[in-house]
């Protein structure tokens, strides 16, 4: 039996502001006299979406901002009503949409657990039974009788998450909540959701921008774009397709947002990847040689430069940092334009979009004169390895590995 059946679901919003009472009356008058009023344009947040979810499935929903993910969730949680089409549901639903909705700042943690619990549909008896478990999970025992307004936002979210996940529902709707609290707590939340999925066999619907998370938790993923289902299939395939689409989108962005801090003594003219022929390139082949070229313009002589070139992902995970250490300490950069090159003989990065960062320190004691991130994006491609292959998971390829297998 399917838990959710979504049938030709469409949701339209009227663009523009709310109509005032005066406008409504005018429109009413116009309608009565048979005149046509100019209609505000419609925006289709969801456009003829059809799918169903079976018992025990764990489904992820991904897509860019504005693709209709949250609208879809709202429809499913019965918060909003579809313009056309239907959503049919069987069983109790626990919507973890922005946990902590309805927390009252003036109430103590204990009072809020009861309040939030009954808002989410728990009976008083159920809350009584689960209270200790909730407090225990949230790690808030010490502060449970303190008003929530004195909590830090992380503490509030911990408590809210604990209440929300204590509901025994057939279907769990999770919207971005896994990105809450400190790292240790995030881990705990993740484990709890995973436990619900793997051991309790619950049906879960997960909406997230964290594609890696979706890939890991879900066995099926739906990719939405502009209100339509673009792809619906095994998580791995859909996530990879989404990655590729993202890669193209990012590397096609002409104007890169650069973040550069400089003391003014030096100006960064250009930083790019160049091929063996010295030509600037935006696509790099995995495993081949690539050179990073940086052109600088100094307005005064700089002594003892230390160059640092780093590679990071588009979401600012630093992958590698290469510094020139003492290499050029004895040299001086006179006023003028200079070029510094770094040759990477074998690029171990797996296919995807990466970006460069650069920093220049001078003098003794060392002083930073230039620092920039996200300076130039480049796409790593590989025509031999499929992006869906397990060898493509992660960021880099480690060479020189040695396996051994002892069978006893």
């Amino acid at each position, binding site marked *: 039996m399917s838990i959710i059946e979504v049938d030709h679901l469409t949701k339209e919003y009227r663009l523009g502001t709310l109509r005032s009472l005066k406008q409504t009356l005018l429109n009413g008058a116009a309608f009565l006299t048979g005149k046509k009023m100019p209609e505000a344009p419609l925006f289709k947040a969801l456009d003829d979406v059809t799918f169903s979810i079976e018992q025990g499935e764990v489904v992820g929903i991904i897509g860019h901002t504005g693709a209709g993910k949250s609208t879809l969730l709202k429809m499913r*949680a019965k918060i*909003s009503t579809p313009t056309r089409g239907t959503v049919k549901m069987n069983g109790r639903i626990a*919507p973890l*949409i922005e946990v902590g909705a309805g927390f009252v700042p003036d109430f103590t943690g204990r009072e809020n657990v009861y309040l939030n619990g009954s808002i*989410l549909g728990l009976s008083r008896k159920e809350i009584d039974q689960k209270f200790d478990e909730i407090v225990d999970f949230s790690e808030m025992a010490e502060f449970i009788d303190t008003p929530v307004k004195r909590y830090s936002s992380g503490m509030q979210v911990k408590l809210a998450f604990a209440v929300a996940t204590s509901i025994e529902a057939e279907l769990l709707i999770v919207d971005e909540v896994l990105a809450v609290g400190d790292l240790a707590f995030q881990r705990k939340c993740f484990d709890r959701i995973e436990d619900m999925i793997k051991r309790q066999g619950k049906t879960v619907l997960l909406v997230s921008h964290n594609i890696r998370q979706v890939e890991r938790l879900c066995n099926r993923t739906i990719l939405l774009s502009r209100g339509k289902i673009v792809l619906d299939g095994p998580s791995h395939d859909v996530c990879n397709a989404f990655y590729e689409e993202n890669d193209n989108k990012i590397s096609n962005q002409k104007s890169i947002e650069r973040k550069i801090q400089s003391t003014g003594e030096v100006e960064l003219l250009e930083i790019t990847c160049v091929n063996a022929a010295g030509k600037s390139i935006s696509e790099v082949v995995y495993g081949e040689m690539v050179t990073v070229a940086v052109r600088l313009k100094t307005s005064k002589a700089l002594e003892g430069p230390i160059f640092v070139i780093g590679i990071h992902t588009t979401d600012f995970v630093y992958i590698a940092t290469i510094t020139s250490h003492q290499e050029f300490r004895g040299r001086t950069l006179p006023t003028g334009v200079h070029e510094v090159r770094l040759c990477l003989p074998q690029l171990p990065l797996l296919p995807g979009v990466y970006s460069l960062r650069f920093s220049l320190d001078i003098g003794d004691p060392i002083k930073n004169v230039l620092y920039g991130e996200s300076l130039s994006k480049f796409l790593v491609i590989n025509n031999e390895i499929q992006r869906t292959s397990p060898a493509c998971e992660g960021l880099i390829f480690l060479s020189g590995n040695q396996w051994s297998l002892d069978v006893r």
Partner: protein
Amino acid sequence: MLRIAKNLYDYRELMVTLAWKNIALRYKQAYLGIVWAILKPITLMLIFTLVRSFIGIESGNIPYPILTFAALLPWTFFQESASDGVGSVVSNATLIKKIYFPREIFPITAVLTKVVELIINFVILAGLMLWYHLMPSIYILWVPLLIGYTILAALTIAFVGAALNVYYRDMAQALPVVLSLLMYVSPVIYPLRLVKDKLLVNQTAGEWSDTLYTLYTLNPLAGIIDSFQSVVLRNQPPDLAALTPGAIAIAVLLPLSYLYFKRAESYFADVI
């Protein structure tokens, strides 16, 4: 009808919790706490009593202060539950956007919350009755019925008002004005008997007198307040003739109001 009742029964715990939240929240950091609930009718009673000493209002054989307090008791309850009910949906916008449960819970809870304050006011009324040596009779058993009727009257305004308020915030602004006007056409400051005498006995407005009186009693509060005074203070049964027009109005309007609310409810989250 049954379905609505069952639905509400299913959500009874939530309503109780939300009502408890409303009350606890209102008085949490107030030093005087729940005392504030009785301050309004008591102050008004004192003001009216003072005003009466200048203009003279016939109150029969019942002392004026307690007569007007007995009028203020259902009136304040009605007025506050109606206006809290109207604001209830908008003030819970965060919940509306995030969690689904039947939205009528909000106006209903707002009214339920006021019942608690009403009960406190009953204690004051009992104290006043002791003070003036007024003993209640068997007719006091009408009180729960009258309060139930007042709740229905307040809900009639709350449902349609709360739904309209989502689309047009003018509603919340206009309501206090309308309600304070309504107070003057309700027998709060003066007893209903005066109106009745003027219109029905003396026929002051000529041939329009009877129609005017029916119009006056079309306001459910006219019947409620008068009946409340009768059963509590005058030891008389309620004046059914004064109750009927208002009761008919509520019987017609309450379902309409509720239906409008339920129709509008599905778009609350989009508009609010």
